Structures are given as structure tokens and as C-alpha cells.
């Protein structure tokens, strides 16, 4: 595995700047997740690193070596795509062996056998090795396609929304497995997704992309608790953070135009009066939709809260975040 360093990367497709001055270090052994909506430039970055696209400017180094002149094969990266592309006429074993049988690698058969066995065990598909690839469930197919990347010993794994085509339960299971595999193997992974849950749960580091720019890079906790911009604050958290005019509550610092309150950061029963407009009982929590001075807020309450639509309730911000008119965070003094 190896450290990957991007510096001042630029890439445009016609008038569209897909990557704008992105600098970032993927530390050796890290699980870096790039999070952003569609069109933010996530996939473009993966393609630049893998060598499928060439940057207009900037440099990429993998394990200390500038890879500008290297072909995709020479860069020794392994890609996993959203759609598992297995050879349908081959067995699981043959699919897993395939990358090792490349004439360039000349891997001895005994070594191929032991590598495939090990990866199959890690992915818990040992009992399916002799099945046809088409004779597998969706989750198993995706595990085989991840396995095909794992049998190699690349500098870095590049994964493009590998779990997005799976159903919710399978996604949750594979998330845990992927995290376990990564820490067991000490693998370096750069993973792209628009799913905030995947970003928060998988990543050692999250990079938030917006319109081709890397807006923030840090641990999931840093990104959630100390977002640098309003758009980053809005990207994480379910339900979404409430963004309201700063002067709606007392105590805004000068220059602040927006106060942002996570739903769990609204204290109930103290402060100013708001009106309950809707109660959603989700089982483990109750979501309250409130109307306060003409604005809508969402907060969370105890699962068995007795509040009903139409009730009045006092609210007070706790740990609010403030932002200036450009959406940049204003740190609170004192």
C-alpha cells in the first residue's frame, strides 16, 4: 500500500470545471471517502488517479513517485465499480484468479491458489468458489468484484459507489465487512459516494467535494461537529441541519447572517415559543416540525413524547453554528 498525494489538480470538460485546484493526501492505510452530490467531481478524481483521464494541470504521486507518465496498468491501482462486472461464464474462482493470470504478472499457480483462498475467506465466499458467477445473489456478486480487486496487491484501491446498487440491509452488512477488510489488510482505499451514512461510518478521513472543489478534509467527527461552510454542514446529518436567519435568536456574533442548528441541538422547554406543526413518530425518535417566527425547524424529541400538532413549545439553541453571507463559518468567541 502507498500514500497518494494530489497537488493542485485541475480538469475541465469543455466549459465545465470538474476538478478545481484539488490538493489532498491519502495517507498510507487510510480509508478516505469523497462525499458530494452527483456532478461534484468525485468520479473524475478517481479517473485522474487511475490514469483513465489526464489532468489539465497539477500532479499525482503514488508512493512518492510522480505517475503523470505512467499508464493505468503501470500505476498499479485497483478499481471497483458500482456495477459489478464479472465474467458470467466463469466460476467465482476463475473470476478471482483472472487478474493474477495476466501475462505481465506471471504469478505461479500455487500462489494464485493460496491468494484466492485467502481473499475468499476474508469475503466469506469460500463455499461459493465453484459456483458460476451468475449463480450468486447481488451481494455475493459485489463481494466477488471487490475480491477481484483484493487478490492483487495494488498501491491503492479506488472504489466508485460499490454498494449503491445493493438493498439497504446488504449495504449495511457490506459496510461493516469492507471496514473490517480494510483494517485487517491495512489497505489504502479512496472511496467515492453521495451517501452520507457511508461516508460517516466507513471513513478515517472524509473529503467533501462541491462543484469540483475540495471544501473540507477531516475525520467524520470534525466534519460533522466543525463544518467550515454551510454547504458542508448541510451535507451531513439526518434530518438536515436547520439554517435560519441569524437574528432570529439572541446572541449572534457580528457578521453572521445564518444560524445553523442540528435537530439535536435545540433544547426543548426553555427559551422562545414555537408551535408544533407536525409530529413524526419514527420509533427510536420522534421528529417535531416546528414553526418559529414564520420559519420551519425540525428537531428530535423522545420517542414517546406526548407533544401533538398545534402544541406550543419553548425552544433554545444549543451549540449553534454561525455563517457569514458567503456561507463561511464564523467561529464564536468566548
Amino acid at each position, binding site marked *: 500500500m502507498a500514500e497518494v498525494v494530489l497537488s493542485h489538480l485541475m480538469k475541465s470538460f469543455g466549459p465545465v470545471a470538474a476538478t478545481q485546484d484539488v490538493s489532498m493526501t491519502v495517507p498510507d492505510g487510510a480509508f478516505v471517502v469523497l462525499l458530494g452530490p452527483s456532478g461534484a467531481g468525485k468520479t473524475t478524481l478517481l479517473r485522474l488517479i487511475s490514469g483513465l483521464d489526464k489532468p489539465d494541470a497539477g500532479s499525482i504521486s503514488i508512493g512518492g513517485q510522480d505517475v503523470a507518465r505512467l499508464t493505468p496498468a503501470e500505476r498499479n491501482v485497483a478499481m471497483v465499480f458500482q456495477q459489478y462486472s464479472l465474467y458470467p461464464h466463469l466460476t467465482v474462482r476463475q473470476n478471482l484468479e483472472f487478474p493474477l493470470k495476466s501475462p505481465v504478472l506471471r504469478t505461479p499457480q500455487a500462489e494464485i491458489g493460496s491468494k484466492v483462498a485467502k481473499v475468499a475467506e476474508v469475503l466469506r465466499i469460500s463455499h461459493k468458489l465453484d459456483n458460476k458467477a451468475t449463480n450468486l445473489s447481488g451481494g455475493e456478486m459485489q463481494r466477488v468484484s471487490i475480491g477481484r480487486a483484493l487478490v492483487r496487491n495494488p498501491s491503492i484501491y479506488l472504489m466508485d459507489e460499490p454498494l449503491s446498487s445493493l438493498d439497504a440491509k446488504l449495504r449495511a452488512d457490506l459496510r461493516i465487512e469492507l471496514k473490517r477488510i480494510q483494517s485487517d489488510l491495512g489497505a489504502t482505499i479512496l472511496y467515492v459516494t453521495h451517501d452520507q451514512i457511508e461516508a*460517516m*461510518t466507513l471513513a478515517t478521513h472524509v473529503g467533501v467535494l462541491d462543484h469540483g472543489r475540495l471544501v473540507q478534509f477531516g475525520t467524520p*467527527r470534525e466534519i460533522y461537529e466543525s463544518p467550515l461552510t454551510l454547504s458542508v454542514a448541510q451535507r*451531513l446529518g439526518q434530518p438536515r441541519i436547520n439554517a435560519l436567519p441569524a437574528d432570529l435568536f439572541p446572541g449572534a456574533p457580528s457578521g453572521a447572517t445564518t444560524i445553523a442548528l442540528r435537530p439535536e441541538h435545540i433544547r426543548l422547554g426553555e427559551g422562545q415559543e414555537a408551535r408544533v406543526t407536525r409530529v*413524526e413518530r*419514527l420509533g427510536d425518535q420522534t421528529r417535531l416540525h416546528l414553526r418559529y417566527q414564520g420559519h420551519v425547524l425540525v428537531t428530535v424529541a423522545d420517542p414517546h413524547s406526548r407533544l401533538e400538532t398545534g402544541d406550543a413549545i419553548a425552544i433554545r439553541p444549543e451549540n449553534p453554528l454561525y455563517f457569514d453571507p458567503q456561507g463561511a463559518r464564523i467561529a464564536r468567541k468566548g
Partner: protein
Amino acid sequence: MAEIVIKNLRKEFGAFTAVKSSSFTVEDGEFFMLLGPSGCGKTTTLRMIAGLELPTSGEIWIDGEEVAQKPASQRDIAFVFQMFALYPHLSVRKNISYPLVSQGMPKAQVAAKVAEVARILGIEHLLDKGVSGLSGGDRQRVALGRAIVRKPAAFMMDEPLGALDAEFREHMAEELRALHDRMKATTVYVTHDQLEAMQMGDKIVVMNHGVIEQFGRPQEIYDKPATMFVAEFIGSPPMNFMRFEGHVRPGNDHVRLGSVDLRVPVQHEDAGGQLVFGVRPEHVTLDDHASYRGRVIASEYLGTTQIITLDTPNGSLKARVPSGRVVNPGETTGLLFTPEKVTLFDEAHGRALKSALHDEGGARG
């Protein structure tokens, strides 16, 4: 607006039974969810209520009239599909007017109704645009407009938000529910998304393999699942199942898992053999002094809370705990289970055993 009563509804397609003897009541003005995995019979049920499919047997009462064998045109129902079926070559105004014009309504009246609907949906500025250039959300609003303009007795919606991306979906779900709260029209809504069902529904029917597993208010279904299927389908992460051999008798308030006694709500039934101790992740607490032990496999940060996955002598388990607590994979910890929230199941039948949890007010314990 209307009450809808379903009695012993059944639908067979050749040898395949899509819906097996379903009965439930949708009260006037309710937002009613049909929830289940694909192939569970929810869409077939909806289509039978709408008259797009005729039942093999059973009754459908809409507003006091039995309509099971009547065609769709004779039922006063509007249908909103997953893929917004709009006329691509017509303007927004013409798309919304269409159902009224085809009924032969006078022009002035049509114009007034379309204006009202456009105002309710906030699409007045789009009325003269073509629908092909609209965003996904606006197209969905137009499709809704076409359904509500007729003021039908009830609305049938088949995963109307299924095609939208996650962020926008949440927004449209709120909009749709707010629209319902203003119009109070009886709505039957099909979804496979448990969160959507919990968020939007006044009542939920959970279906599986053509059978109704449970019917009730969202919180009730969450707190007192009637079957293992419901316990697992509702909630994210789902309810934990810890399997054990044992026997419970009426009056018991403990079960023994391995060498540890765990408190449960006072049981009302006699059951034995393979049993299941069901507990939701937020009712599991990590406590070093507890005698039931588990080994931490993973922790997943989710902002205010984190999900801890553990290995226990009775299988894998997930706990939802505050994210401030440091939990490291590999460590062993004691586990406490909030006793009054536990459900025991009989594994052979997948059915919840009756206990104090099911007594009046038991869930609030």
C-alpha cells in the same frame, strides 16, 4: 372523501397467490401506508382498490358502496404512479386540465380549478411551460396536480417518490404530507421504504408474501412488532434477535441465555423450544459491570450516536450509543438490555409472545 373497508381480499394469478385474505380499514382522511418488500402483494392490493385489477374474491367498500367487481372508471379514485405519466407534448396547464376536460367540464370552471391546484402546489409560474423541460420535482408536482384536480374520494399512490434521489425525496415526502394535511383526502400509499412509511403514515399495513403481518400506528408497530418479519423490516438498524433454547410460562419475568438471567416483561404465554430475545439497538447499553458479555466488532460514527456491532454467545448484535463514548474493536464489554422493551419470539412460527409489553400502555412502560 371516503372510508375504505377491505374484507378478505384475495388475488390469484394462475397458481400464484399474490394477496391472501387481507382485511383492514382505511379511515376517512387517513394517510395510509402499504409497506413491504418487493413481491409482497402491496401494489396488487392498491391496484385492486383502484379497480385496475379485479380480486379473485373478497369485498372492497369505498364510502359505503361495495365496488370490488366494478371497473376503475366507476370508482371515484385518482392514481399517482411511480413514473410520472405526463403527456410530454402538452403544457403543464393542459396536463392538469386533462381529467376535467375529458369529463366535459365547462372551460371557465376548468380554468378556476387548475388555478387553485397550481396555487396549492406552488407551480403557478410553470402553467404555460412544456412538461418535458421540467425538473423531476416539478414533474411530480404536475402529476399530483392532475390527480387532485378532480377532487376524487381517495388517492392511490404507488411509490410516487421512488424515482427521486435521497435528498429530494425527503423534501417531496414532506411536501406531499403537508398537502395531505391541507386537503385531508383519504390516501393509500405503497412503499418499500420503512422510513418513508413511518414518517408519512397515520397507519401502516406491513405485508409479506401476500399476507398482512401487522396493521397499526407507526409507533405501535415499532414498539410491539407482532412478528419477527416486522421487527426486522422496521427500524434501522433492525431489531436484534438473540436465539436461545428455553421455556417460558405465564408470569415469568426472566429468561436464561447461557448462564445469564435477563429480565423481560411479564410473559402471558406458555412457549418452549427455540426462542428469540428481541431487543432494539437503542435499548442495548454498554456497561462493564453487566454479566452478559459481547466482543466489539465495529463502531460506526453517525454524528450524535454511533452503532456498535458486537459478537455475543447468541449471535451478532447492534447497539446504538452516544458517539462521545470511546469503543474499540476487539474489546469485550458487558451488555444491559432495557427489560420493559424486550420482545420474545417463538422462532418456529416467527410470532411475538404476548407479554406485559402488549398490555394497555405497556409500550410506554
